[in-house]
């Protein structure tokens, strides 16, 4: 299914053929569920939020102006919904200051496992203030495309760039040892 297929499906739905919406659901269910999952880290809740996003998309289908791609409109709608849902019932996160930081990650032989470090960084992102967490989440969801992230968030690109930069700064300050460039040792 391509962008033109999306448009054709939307036109069919608007003409009264509800079953044409199934094509849209099947095409976009993966991305919408995964976007929700990145926000809440809970599979069940991610599916519930994605279902609500599809329902809202169905209700608002006539409001899609074809000057933007259908996917852009759909992601913006879903992002808006996910953000308000998570403001209503926030996901469980570990406070940023409690994200495990080793006493001295470089001291032990071999240091921490990469897996633990990656997990700590992801947890730290989850514990960031919403504005930075959302910018980072959307940026990486859209494969580091600032323009797409900005469209989904409904914010100017400059604002998103500033939030990404500030979010990374906070991560560096909260995880100084995990995010530090280590001294290299001679073999």
């Amino acid at each position, binding site marked *: 299914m391509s962008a033109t297929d999306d448009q054709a499906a939307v036109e069919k739905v608007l003409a009264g053929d509800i*079953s044409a919406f199934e094509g849209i659901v*099947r095409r976009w269910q993966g991305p919408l*569920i995964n976007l929700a999952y990145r926000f809440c880290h809970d599979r069940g809740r991610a*599916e519930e939020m994605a*279902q609500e996003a599809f329902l809202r998309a169905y209700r608002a289908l006539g409001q899609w102006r074809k000057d933007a791609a259908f996917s852009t409109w759909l992601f913006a709608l879903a992002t808006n919904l996910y953000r308000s849902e998570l403001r209503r019932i926030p996901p469980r996160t570990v406070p940023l200051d409690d994200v495990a930081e080793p006493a001295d990650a470089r001291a032990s032989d071999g240091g*921490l496992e990469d897996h633990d470090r990656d997990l700590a960084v992801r947890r730290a*992102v989850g514990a960031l203030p919403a504005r930075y967490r959302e910018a980072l989440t959307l940026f990486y969801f859209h494969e*580091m495309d600032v323009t797409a992230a900005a469209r989904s968030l409904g914010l100017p690109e400059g604002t998103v760039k500033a939030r990404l930069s500030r979010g990374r700064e906070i991560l560096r300050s909260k995880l100084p040892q995990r995010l*530090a460039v280590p001294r290299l040792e001679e073999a």
Partner: protein
Amino acid sequence: MKRPTGQFMGNDEDEMNRILSQADEILPSSGFAASVMDAVRREAAAPPPIPFPWKRALPGLAVGGLMLVLVLRALLVAMAHAVKVTAPQSMSLPSGMPPLFHGGIESAAIWAALALLTALVSVKLTMRLAFSRI
């Protein structure tokens, strides 16, 4: 050279990008699309939302508007009266004002309270009428 495991090498931003780009992907459960389509069909089958009962609300709104105009007029008169009391006897109330408006600021306050009460009653009544039809 030895790379200590668990530590970032080189540009930490590249490492951050690498870590955060590797998010866990989940697959939709098998019945997800069917469940969404059920919800969509229920939504399509549901009756359209009841429109706001303008016909019933209009008299209340008209009365409310009229009361608001009267209260504003009374307030203006009261203010003019207050100015008249403090200033030399050069101003007088408009000749068309009913006698009730000649009572000064207390009378205006009573009128304002009455108007607010009327507005509250009309809003409550309108909402009751609207919700009783759902």
